[in-house]
């Protein structure tokens, strides 16, 4: 067809003053009230129009249509068999406009009777023009009336450009200048090959209650008012049509709630937000808003973290959570007993949480036999019990490996000691797959095979591994990264000019999105290997990431006991809290220290200080890093006590960092 033909057609039709009668079913419905099948009524069908409208467009709602019929309704592919009432009440007639989308100026090619009546323009007066004339108060005007909201116009333009639906309200004018509110919906119509050939506009006109004489030029959105006003559909003063916005304006700061709350308050820490709530009533009201509080947490802790928290906890009150995670006032130990069994029994396995499920892989069985089975414990179940996961294939059995969780329900295994020596392979498992299967990831040149190394996950999908012990018994001090988001993940060593002394059994904790805290372990010290109590940190976002030692003192508060730093240890538990602080406890500790004493560190402080945390409730006798999992960001689950040689995996000790929102307000 082409534009030229269209132009010719239009010329002709305009000259002839042709009118098009609607043959749409929906009009029939409006008039008759009932949907009549296959009754398209009689009217003048302009053959010329039919031709250039295009091929039959099979739209879903067309099922009542007889596709052989060449009515205009068919060709445009408008859902004619569907009552207009799906977005407007059936009893109110809708005005319809169809424009030719192949012409850059989107000229009107069809208007219905309701349009003519509502606007006062006859079809022959408007065919061939872009429908923006409705925004002019006078038929002779060159541009739209200043009261017409330019933002809405801009939005319409954007939707048309992007080929998406538009729905909104706009100020329009009848031919005689009477202002109207046009509740407008625009939708693109596609031809078979997907090109947008037409735009259909459905309008509901109603009287606009505005005084055209009180307007200043150009029109703007009110941002400051001396007192609070509630805006419903209209802003009477400016004539702007706001979409159901309840905007209270803070007379004090003269900034709207939007700017205040969303843009300024949300950039503060949870503590600052709580504190600023004491300033005045208005601000207190703003800070109470759950959405604002959520944004505050999100900005402070990162969207990944808040995503986990939201998903895990039912009925989360962000304000309360932020407070509890800051003050740790609700922290306590709880004991859980679960059913099922992990059999054959084993030690030196690795466990990790994927969502609310704990996963355990491998371990060292009787006779030092490396195990290769996978178990899962679903804490969401009414009666959680250990179950073996039946997988098509397993990685080779091993112990002293690491199991880490990736985004959502994925788990990754690396290294460890297998049947024939140390390993450096990588396997991943999707717990949510219909048939969970361990899949090997080749990864290019892997790090040296090792056991008792440490790993952590960065940004949900990057596995970081460091240290450990080789076949020859040599301790390592390297750092490797494997980005599992890539199609072909490749191991990459992180070269640093200096690395912490080589070690095994240390912990790696990710914090602040791209940083890692390394703590403790059995480290090389001259000819010896000694338990370490040192902290090191690295920021992987730096151009050239470097490990550096973190000099941490001990907090000396009023009335506290002697300032203490955590005694050196290995195989301990290190947990990163949502707010970025790190909790350390457990492990194999030099001397007679209790493994259940908790220590807290904020590595992002300028001069980080260790704080001790006394937690009510019964703590476990022992706690090991490899058998401790963090669930939902606020629950730390230590698997099993350890009496003699046996691991009691049916007894779990839970360190609750925050109260469970669904049970306590």
């Amino acid at each position, binding site marked *: 067809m082409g534009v030229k033909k269209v132009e010719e057609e239009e010329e002709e039709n305009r000259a002839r003053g042709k009118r098009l009668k609607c043959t749409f079913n929906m009009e029939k419905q409006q008039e008759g009230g009932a949907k009549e099948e296959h009754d398209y009524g009689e009217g003048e069908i302009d053959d010329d129009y039919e031709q250039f409208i295009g091929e039959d467009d099979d739209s879903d709602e067309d099922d009542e249509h007889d596709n052989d019929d060449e009515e205009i309704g068919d060709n445009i592919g408008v859902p004619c068999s569907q009552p207009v009432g799906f977005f407007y009440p059936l009893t109110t007639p809708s005005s319809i406009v169809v424009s030719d989308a192949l012409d850059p100026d989107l000229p009107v090619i069809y208007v219905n009777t309701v349009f003519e009546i509502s606007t006062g323009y006859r079809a022959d007066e408007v065919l061939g023009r872009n429908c923006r004339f409705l925004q002019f108060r006078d038929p002779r005007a060159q541009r739209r009336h200043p009261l017409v909201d*330019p933002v809405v116009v801009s939005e319409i333009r954007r939707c048309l450009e992007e080929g998406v639906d538009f729905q909104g309200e706009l100020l329009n004018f009848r031919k005689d200048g009477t202002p109207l509110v046009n509740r407008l919906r625009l939708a693109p119509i596609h031809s078979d090959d997907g090109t947008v050939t037409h735009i259909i506009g459905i309008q509901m006109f109603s009287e606009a209650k505005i005084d055209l004489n009180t307007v200043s030029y*150009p029109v703007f959105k009110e941002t400051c008012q001396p007192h609070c006003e509630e805006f419903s559909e209209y802003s009477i003063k400016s004539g702007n049509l706001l979409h159901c916005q309840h905007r209270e304006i803070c007379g004090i700061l003269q900034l709207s709630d939007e700017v205040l709350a969303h843009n300024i*308050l949300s950039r503060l820490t949870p503590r600052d937000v709580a504190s600023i709530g004491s*300033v*005045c009533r208005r601000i207190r009201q703003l800070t109470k808003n759950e959405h604002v509080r959520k944004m505050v947490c999100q900005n402070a802790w990162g969207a990944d973290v808040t995503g986990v928290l939201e998903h895990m906890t039912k009925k989360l009150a962000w304000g309360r959570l932020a407070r509890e995670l800051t003050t740790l006032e609700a922290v306590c130990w709880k004991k859980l007993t679960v059913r099922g069994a992990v059999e054959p029994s084993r030690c030196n396995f690795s466990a990790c949480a994927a969502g609310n499920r704990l996963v355990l892989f491998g371990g060292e069985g009787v006779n030092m036999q490396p195990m290769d089975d996978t178990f899962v414990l679903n804490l969401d179940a009414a009666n959680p019990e250990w179950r073996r996961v039946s997988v098509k294939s397993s990685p080779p059995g091993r112990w002293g490996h690491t199991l880490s969780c990736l985004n959502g329900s994925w788990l990754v295994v690396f290294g460890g000691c297998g049947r024939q020596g140390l390993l450096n392979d990588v396997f991943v498992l999707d717990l949510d797959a219909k048939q969970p299967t361990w899949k090997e990831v080749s990864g290019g040149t892997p790090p040296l095979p090792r056991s008792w190394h440490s790993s952590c996950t960065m940004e949900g999908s990057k596995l970081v591994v460091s240290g450990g012990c080789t076949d020859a018994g040599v301790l390592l001090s390297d750092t490797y990264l494997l980005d599992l988001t890539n199609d072909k993940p490749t191991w990459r060593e992180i070269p640093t000019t200096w690395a912490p002394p080589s070690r095994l059994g240390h912990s790696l904790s990710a914090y602040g999105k791209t940083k890692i805290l390394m703590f403790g372990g059995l480290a090389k010290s001259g000819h010896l290997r000694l338990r370490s109590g040192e902290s090191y940190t690295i920021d992987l976002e730096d151009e050239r990431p470097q490990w550096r030692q973190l000099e941490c003192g001990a907090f000396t508060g009023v009335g506290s006991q002697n300032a203490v730093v955590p005694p050196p240890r290995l195989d301990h538990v290190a947990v990163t809290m949502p707010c970025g602080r790190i909790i350390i406890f457990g492990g194999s500790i030099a001397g007679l220290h209790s493994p259940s004493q908790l220590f807290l560190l904020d590595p992002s402080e300028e001069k980080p200080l260790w704080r001790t945390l006394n937690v009510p409730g019964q703590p476990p006798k022992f706690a090991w890093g490899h058998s401790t999992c963090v669930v939902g960001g606020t629950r730390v689950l230590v698997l099993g006590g350890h009496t003699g040689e046996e691991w009691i995996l049916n007894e779990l000790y839970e360190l609750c960092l925050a109260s469970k929102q669904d049970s306590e307000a």
Partner: protein
Amino acid sequence: MASSSKTEQKKMLILKSSEEEEFEIEESIAVQSGTIKNMVEDDFTLIPLPNVDTETLIKIIKYMKKHGEKTKSNEKDIEEFDKEFVKKSFTELKELVLAANYLHITSLIDLLCQAFADRIKNKSVKAIREIFGIPNDFTPEEEAEVYEQHKWAHEEGKEHIDHSAY
């Protein structure tokens, strides 16, 4: 659609402040403001801004000019400019954020709001009231109640609470 000038000359706009002073600016730079962009698309070249006074408009034009020249190489330069830009009094910042909000210059709104947030951080309630000139409109009972609720946030000059004190 806006009729864009097809000549080699850069299209200029005139921005008029609330005090009727006019400033010429390149269209390509001025459209960093969403509000101005909308008006340009409707063929306006003289843009009255009744919400923005001259002093503020001058600062905003300065900002837009600097950010209009953004390339990959001068990122640091622009960062420095931004840092200096927010070193203003609260009153000035407030005027700027109102204007930026009206003009819909997202990057400037963010910059100014961050500056506000940075100034509020770690300040005591009293200090914030003084800075913003906000009167305390709580009754004594209300104030006590609110303080209790937010006690955890106020204590120890914003230091962490050491539970070993328990």
